[in-house]
């Protein structure tokens, strides 16, 4: 779909409509958690462990409680009275809310101070004295999984090792046989370091228990308000919280990226405190708490083996991964997929043999990891296959673009069944790569690079041709804690032809208030400006699993179109009634029904809406509204090809991204401007981990990268000018041919950078390593040479 079907007044799909939410954001009139103040509200602040592993000998609260305004200190034993000191993770593991005797990672919550003012709460935290007995610390996931390692999770009865889980996909023996029969095999160790979403707004909540009504309202930074309500009802039912008496409100959110899917201990402590005290409790993390204690992402140590024939035909792939999950498996993944959709690791290539496995380790680090704008571990999978592809190209002395072209799944092979079990809905990979090569002037750049190499200058060209897998998901396979991953839309058309539409998803900046309105406009012809979109209040919105993993357009977007079509069907009956013709005699164009062959005989959607409340046909229910719960038949498979050029300072190892071309294909587009914005943001969050960001730990489990002083989020000055373009391959099964796009760029960008920067020399040393491959930059050149 290239030209919009609707005019600019209706502003349906394909229009770059300015975002309806932006005027309030730009004017500073957004309403984020910390903008709310409730009458009688108290403040909570948290005492955190300086040790990665220690026994708590004593928590002395006397000095804190003497501070005027400090009302209470809540610790593990307090919560244990209500059996709330432990909670389930999204991955059905368990984690502490507050500890009774041992802390298991640095910055773990130890106890919480409740006070009348935010500043007093902080003074209270400062005055709490905790005596610790430091214990041995396990930071290395490989050592943690080694036989005889001390068992970390002693709370788990009978647990004899530190394996959180093992997962695998594919036929190992078959993949190994095919590797052995390959002409060439490359083996790459790829480490994706621990990183953090570092959203602009940190996490927080106001828990408000109304003692008169017995109703709990929690205003919180959550990407999945409905799921959170159900989880609260399931885990706190024993203290009298019942689902009809729980309301979760997710107001404006300043970025989620997966980090606002989990329920963190702070939320639970605030809820418990509010229920016990009977007053609203506000808790807002500071930046360092956010970086140090909230769920991390990645932390995958992957060994990738890729085999090929001499001519470059890929034959077999094998990946063995050690995943560092910290002290609890708090991944945000669907139940059946503990490593997310990692088995998309065959990527864009027609591989007939493949096997991948993941061993998840417990260590003394914060629990995780979340799916940081990665569609459930797809970033890891894409990095593995794209790095391996470049290593193979280098080994075969073949151009990496040519190698990709040779191995792409061909357009006529779709729908394509991958050897690891996915059915790719659609794709046209060669066209996207060719387009990116044309835009960047690939051949000329390779010639320039060859010239530069002769002079000793370092210039890199990196390609990534990724396949994404988004829109979880079909209910036969996808659930989180048992709740199926459908999503919903509810549309009500008012008598004057305006509409309100509510969804089970929750925007964190993606622009849902605009894009959903445009879908309604496309389907009903009601101007997008007249469609009010609401999400995030569980008392009003239909049930849904929330926004993450690029699922909103594939699921709620589809639900929106189908609900709108139900309304259109009913409106057609009303139009026939008003025009006194049969339904079969009517045709539709956006905004009105007209009589075939007599277009002057027409009724607009607004006229139909008015009639639905004032003059509806006898025997028909009044009103014009519909609900749809959409269960997608398959996931959607957006893709793209990215090429970047970097110049590397031979003296310092400093990497400058000279150009970056991104060609994306997300099927039919609702709002091109918003898609471009998503890609710009995603690309920036791709170069961040590739060149700057990393959280690491020393042998004692002390965090490095726990503040913006040393967690290097790129700024506008580090960000190159993004050159974006697109191809359009509609999803064959989505109601309007769209695919999710929120995460494509974060998934696709890091390997493009890594492939431009990392190149093994004959000695086997890496030329310039960045955060992606080691903790520090190293330069492969003799120290002391003139530079």
């Amino acid at each position: 779909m290239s030209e919009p079907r609707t005019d600019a007044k209706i502003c349906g799909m394909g229009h770059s409509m300015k975002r309806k939410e932006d005027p309030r954001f730009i004017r500073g009139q957004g309403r984020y958690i910390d903008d709310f103040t409730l009458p009688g509200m108290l403040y909570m602040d948290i005492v955190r462990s300086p040790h990665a592993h220690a026994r708590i000998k004593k928590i002395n609260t006397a000095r804190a409680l003497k501070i005027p305004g400090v009302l209470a200190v809540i610790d593990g034993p307090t919560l244990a009275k209500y059996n709330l000191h432990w909670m389930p993770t999204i991955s059905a593991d368990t984690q502490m809310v507050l500890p009774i005797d041992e802390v298991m990672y640095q910055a773990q919550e130890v106890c919480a101070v409740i006070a009348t003012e935010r500043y007093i709460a902080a003074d209270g935290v400062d005055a709490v004295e905790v005596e610790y007995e430091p214990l041995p610390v396990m930071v290395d996931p490989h050592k943690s999984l080694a036989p005889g390692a001390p068992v970390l999770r002693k709370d788990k009865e009978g647990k004899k090792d530190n394996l959180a889980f093992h997962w695998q996909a594919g036929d190992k023996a078959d993949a190994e046989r095919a590797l052995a029969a390959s002409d060439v095999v490359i083996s790459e160790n790829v480490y994706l370091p621990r990183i953090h979403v570092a959203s602009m707004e940190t996490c927080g909540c106001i828990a408000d228990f109304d003692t008169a009504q017995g109703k709990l309202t929690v205003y919180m930074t959550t990407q999945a308000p409905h799921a959170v309500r159900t989880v609260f009802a399931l885990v706190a039912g024993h203290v009298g919280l019942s689902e009809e008496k729980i309301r979760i409100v997710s107001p404006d959110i300043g970025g989620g990226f997966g980090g606002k899917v989990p329920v963190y201990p702070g939320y639970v402590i605030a809820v418990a405190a509010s229920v016990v005290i009977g007053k609203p409790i506000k808790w807002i993390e500071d930046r360092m708490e956010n970086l140090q204690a909230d769920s991390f992402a990645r932390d995958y140590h992957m060994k990738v083996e890729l085999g090929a024939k001499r001519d470059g035909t890929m034959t077999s792939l094998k990946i063995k991964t050690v995943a560092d999950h910290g002290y609890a498996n708090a991944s945000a993944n669907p139940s059946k997929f503990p490593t997310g959709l990692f088995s998309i690791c065959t990527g864009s290539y027609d591989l007939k043999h493949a096997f991948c496995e993941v061993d998840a380790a417990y260590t003394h680090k914060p629990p995780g990891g979340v799916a940081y704008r990665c569609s459930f571990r797809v970033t890891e999978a894409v990095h593995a296959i794209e790095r391996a592809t470049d290593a193979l190209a280098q080994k075969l002395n073949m151009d990496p673009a040519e190698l990709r072209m040779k191995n792409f799944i061909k357009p006529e092979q779709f729908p394509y069944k991958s050897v690891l079990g996915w059915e790719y809905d659609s794709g046209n990979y060669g066209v996207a790569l060719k387009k990116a090569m044309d835009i960047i002037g690939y051949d000329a750049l390779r010639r320039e690079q060859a010239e530069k190499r002769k002079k000793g200058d370092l210039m890199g060209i990196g390609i990534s041709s990724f396949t994404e897998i988004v829109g979880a998901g079909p209910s036969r396979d996808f659930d989180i804690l048992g709740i199926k991953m459908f999503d919903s839309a509810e549309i009500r058309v008012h008598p004057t032809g305006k509409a309100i539409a509510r969804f089970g998803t929750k925007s964190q900046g993606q622009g849902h208030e605009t894009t959903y309105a445009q879908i309604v406009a496309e389907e009903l012809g009601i101007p997008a400006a007249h469609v009010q979109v609401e999400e995030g209040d569980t008392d009003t919105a239909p049930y849904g699993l929330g926004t993450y993993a690029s699922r909103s357009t594939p699921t709620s977007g589809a639900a929106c179109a189908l609900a709108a079509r139900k309304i259109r069907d009913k409106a057609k009956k009303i139009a026939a009634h008003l025009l006194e013709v049969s339904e079969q005699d009517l045709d539709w164009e956006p905004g009105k029904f007209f009589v075939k062959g007599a277009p002057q005989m027409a009724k607009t959607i607004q006229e139909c809406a008015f009639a639905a409340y004032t003059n509806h046909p006898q025997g028909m229910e009044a009103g014009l509204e519909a609900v749809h719960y959409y269960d997608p038949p398959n996931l959607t498979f957006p893709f793209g090809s990215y090429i970047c050029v970097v110049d590397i300072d031979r003296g310092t190892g400093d990497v400058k991204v000279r150009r970056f071309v991104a060609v994306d294909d997300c099927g039919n587009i609702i709002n091109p401007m918003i898609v471009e914005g998503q890609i710009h943001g995603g690309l920036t969050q791709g170069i961040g981990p590739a060149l700057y960001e990393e959280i690491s730990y020393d042998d004692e489990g002390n965090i490095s990268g726990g503040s913006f002083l040393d967690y290097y989020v790129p700024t506008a000055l580090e960000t190159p000018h993004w050159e974006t373009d697109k191809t359009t391959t509609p999803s064959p099964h989505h109601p309007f041919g769209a695919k999710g796009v929120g995460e494509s760029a974060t998934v696709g960008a890091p390997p493009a950078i890594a492939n431009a920067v990392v190149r093994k020399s004959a000695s086997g040393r890496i030329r310039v390593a960045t955060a992606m491959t080691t903790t520090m930059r190293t330069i492969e050149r003799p120290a002391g040479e003139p530079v």
Partner: protein
Amino acid sequence: MIPAAFDYHRADTLDDALKLLKKYGDEAKVLSGGMSLLPMLKLRLASFAHLVDINRVPGLDYIKEEKGTLRIGAMTRQAALERSDLIRTQYPILADAVPLIADPLVRNRGTIGGNVANGDPGNDQPAIMLALGATFVARGSKERSIPASQFYKGLYSTALAPGEILTEIRIPAPPPKSGGAYAKLKRKTGDFAVAAAAVQLTLGKNGAIERAGIGLTNAGLTPVEAVDAAKYLVGKMPDEKTIAEAAKMAAAKSSPSADRRGSVEYKKEMARVLTARALRKAVQRAGGN
């Protein structure tokens, strides 16, 4: 990120400020731009019962050349230095450095006095002051001058006595055939230097180096003055071999610690690379080759 309670005092004159410092002694701290002090307070890494704000004290904000000396008032904001024609045309070493200090927001508030007086080896201007042979003027019960080379005593520790306020920075105006440069490597905008080198030199009639000063940023617990390397340069022609040797000598004086910006080995190597680059540029600006 919430500081412990403190009392705030706004001084309207320098004498007011000095009186408040005397009254509260160790419990008081001068607040100028606040770009280092406020984060330290918010992180509760430092705590002072009294802050003495000198932002309203008149007469501490100027950039002027007088009788062969550049005089900069201690309350001069980095942004003012960034916009100064005098700095841009006559003091390229500062013109190089100032746009690389933190970010525009910090430069709008941060002052040169705070930058040099805080005793943070990660700050950029101390090394520059060492290279330029600057002198700091301090006011306590009386006024005194302290050469930059004698100012830095340890991490966050300086020759400034309790009750003293740094009021002015004096830099000898460079004679003809002088050149300076600052070369800095940082991970990203807003970060402190991985390593940085400040070089100021003057060439003689025959093209040989007549005077040289070299300072290193983030190369130890205090700003490092590479005295040996500077001495080595004097009397020599500024050719590539001399530059390479001086850079090596300067790097040998650095004793950085490992952190997220790099290993000790890497940082020492960067001190060498950046010193060589700053030397080359300084020579070029002095009219040499």
